[in-house]
């Protein structure tokens, strides 16, 4: 069981402090993500933890011993680092590069023995790059090279592994491959600290997450505790939606392009809920429509999206039926719109009034669109009431649409 710990570490380049009183520890068998916006001090913390940048105050210890008093080779036998620096061109083969990882175990002249070769070859197999052994490093792709650099670190036979943005510049599939590899290494007992810029990767793969902001660790803990809309707002200065993935992990979505000031385009009112409207909200707002929405329960995902986009909206308390007051305001808002869109919401007794609002607008002669996919009867949890109201909508002149694309085309024709 190895532990690398920084306690109350302050570090600076020249005189500009970059880390302020940072404490963080990583130990065997865990995968810890270090996240935070650019310039928050992640890479500096990596340098402090990897015996490259001596902190001005505070202490870094490896298994209780002060890191900066240990001999470099002794540290390298326990702690390996995969940095951001690109691998060298200079013409080494992949295997030669991985063999260099053996150097803290070798004599001064670096004479490798058969066993070192075996360990290097195994390291390549572990990262799934055994077939690259004879290839020139210069002839590897970005994803391959990252795996080769990890293999080099593994050849050091470390107990702890630090990676600085191992997924940077990689395609999505290679990012997932690297994260899967880190999980396997964690399962094999390694302690892994990875700087990640993708909060979703951090949230879905890591055991713990440390969020840095302006040289400090703002929050540290389980992904669900750290990756919250509030933390992201404070550190990245932006609004995001935080959901829970099927695996019980948080994941973020960002609203679409920032709404443009609506330049005399149509006012479209969306009657939505349960995530049926969020995609369309972003699309329409991004296209310059003035978008409003209602009636949305607070904490519903559509409510969160509308809030993030800053849309005009009618809200109701969480899990509460639509009140008389909300319904009256909703009728006003929908009645003022150039077009009303009823999304394919599941309808129960609590929100059946949303259909009544659509019907009122249709009877008042407003253009109303309603979605027919999935069929209303399948979404009717109000004892047939929803199905009946859809039929009345059609009778009142509302237009059925099957897809968002069809709807948008119809709206474009109106403009």
């Amino acid at each position, binding site marked *: 069981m190895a532990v690398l710990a920084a306690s109350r570490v302050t570090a600076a380049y020249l005189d500009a402090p970059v880390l302020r009183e940072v404490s963080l520890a990583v130990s065997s068998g865990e995968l810890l993500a270090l996240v935070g916006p650019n310039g928050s001090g992640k890479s500096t913390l990596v340098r402090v933890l990897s015996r490259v940048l001596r902190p001005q105050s505070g202490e870094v210890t490896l298994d209780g011993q002060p890191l900066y008093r240990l001999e*470099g080779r002794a540290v390298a036998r326990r702690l390996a680092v995969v940095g951001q620096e690109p691998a060298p061109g*200079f013409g*080494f083969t992949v295997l030669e590069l991985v063999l*260099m990882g053996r150097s803290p175990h070798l004599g001064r002249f*670096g004479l490798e023995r058969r066993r070192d070769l075996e360990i290097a*070859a195994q390291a390549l197999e572990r990262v799934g790059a*055994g077939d690259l052994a004879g290839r020139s490093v210069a002839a590897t792709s970005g994803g391959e090279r990252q795996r080769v650099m990890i293999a080099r670190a593994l050849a050091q036979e470390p107990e702890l592994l630090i990676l600085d943005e191992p997924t940077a510049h990689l395609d999505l599939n290679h990012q997932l491959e690297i994260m899967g590899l880190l999980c396997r290494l964690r399962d094999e007992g390694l302690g892994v600290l990875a700087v990640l810029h993708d909060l979703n990767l951090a949230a879905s793969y890591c055991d713990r997450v440390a969020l840095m902001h302006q040289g400090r660790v703002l929050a540290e803990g389980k992904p669900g505790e750290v990756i919250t809309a509030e933390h992201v707002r404070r550190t990245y200065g932006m609004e995001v939606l935080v959901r829970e993935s099927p695996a019980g992990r948080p994941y973020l979505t960002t609203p679409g392009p920032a709404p443009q000031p609506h330049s005399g385009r149509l006012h479209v009112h969306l009657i939505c809920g349960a995530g049926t409207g969020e995609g369309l909200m972003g699309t329409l707002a991004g296209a310059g429509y003035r978008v409003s929405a209602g009636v949305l329960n607070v904490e519903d995902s559509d409510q969160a999206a509308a809030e993030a986009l800053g849309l005009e909206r009618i809200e109701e308390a969480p899990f509460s039926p639509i009140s008389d007051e909300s319904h009256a305001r909703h009728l006003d808002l929908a009645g003022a719109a150039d077009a009303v869109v009823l999304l394919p919401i599941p309808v129960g007794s609590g929100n059946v009034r949303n259909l009544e609002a659509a019907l009122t607008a249709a009877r008042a002669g407003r253009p109303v669109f309603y979605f027919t996919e999935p069929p209303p009867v399948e979404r009717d949890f109000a004892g047939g009431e929803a199905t009946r109201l859809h039929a009345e909508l059609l009778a009142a002149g509302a237009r059925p649409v099957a897809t968002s694309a069809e709807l948008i085309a119809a709206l474009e024709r109106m403009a």
Partner: protein
Amino acid sequence: MAASAPGLPHHRALIPRLLGTLAVLVPVVLMAAGVSLAIGAADIPLRRIASCVFAHLTGGRSHLPPETDLLIWNVRASRVVLGALVGMALAVAGGTFQGLLRNPLADPYLIGVSAGAGAGAAFALMRHLQEAAWGLGVPLFAFLGAAVTMAGVYALAQVRGKVPMEAFILAGVVVGSFMWSLVTVFMSVAGQDLGSIVFWLMGRLEVGEWRQVGVVAALAVPSALILYGYAHQLNLLTLGEEAARQSGVEVERLKVRVILVGSLLTAAAVCLTGIIGFVGLVIPHIARRLVGPDHRVLLPAAGLIGAAFLMLADTVARSAFSFGEIPVGVITSLLGAPFFCYLLRARSGG
């Protein structure tokens, strides 16, 4: 898991690679030495040369006319050995600096050592100090000039106990330019000694005298061996300074030592013979093409190729032209510059 997993990937271990390289290059050096000894103004049969060299090496008597013996051993052999030493020194220093700076355009003169040596030598020649210090006045001052330059470059480049490589190169260029302007100052006040200064700066090997060659050997051979001891750490340095440090290399210590010993090696090469260009730049490239980037094989290969190359270039310099000798530095530049262009084109083309 793949069926072939237990088998090791093909990999040539260091010792066989090193021995293979030596097995090819040592005979090349010996042949170059033989050719260089055999060719000259006076035609001497190879058999006589061989018996003379054999006799001197074994301490016996050569049975040759004394003047022939003198010509072969004291004039040609000393010059050939000096050429081998200087060629080796420049190529090893060049290969080392290219590795240290991770820049294939680095050469031993980049960091101002040659300019400092030039200033020292020019000063000694201007003040007629050839006979000082038991006849080693000029090399002594050249060496001092190189040392002073090195100290200045190092002091300038150092920031809080560390030597950033960019600062090191810049400081080398700055101090080097200053030293070159000193050379011009000495030249402009040298009067009739101007010729000897210019001649020194061009780089030539006809100064060979066993005692002087011995001094160069005493400086160059240990320096080159010490640098060779850093070969593996130079390999790690190609990963980047930070990565090397994280692999256990004490990078700052390595840099300081390699810079000092590499400068010493360069100073040893230039102090007696002047500034012979392009060997330290081109030969490591040729060696890298032949044996790859591993400094543990690259440095010996560069040293041997450098030795052979300079012996042959000197043979051309002293015998190929009907009007007499020309400085070997001219030959190396004439050959080196176009060849370097070829290397550049070949690299960018493929």
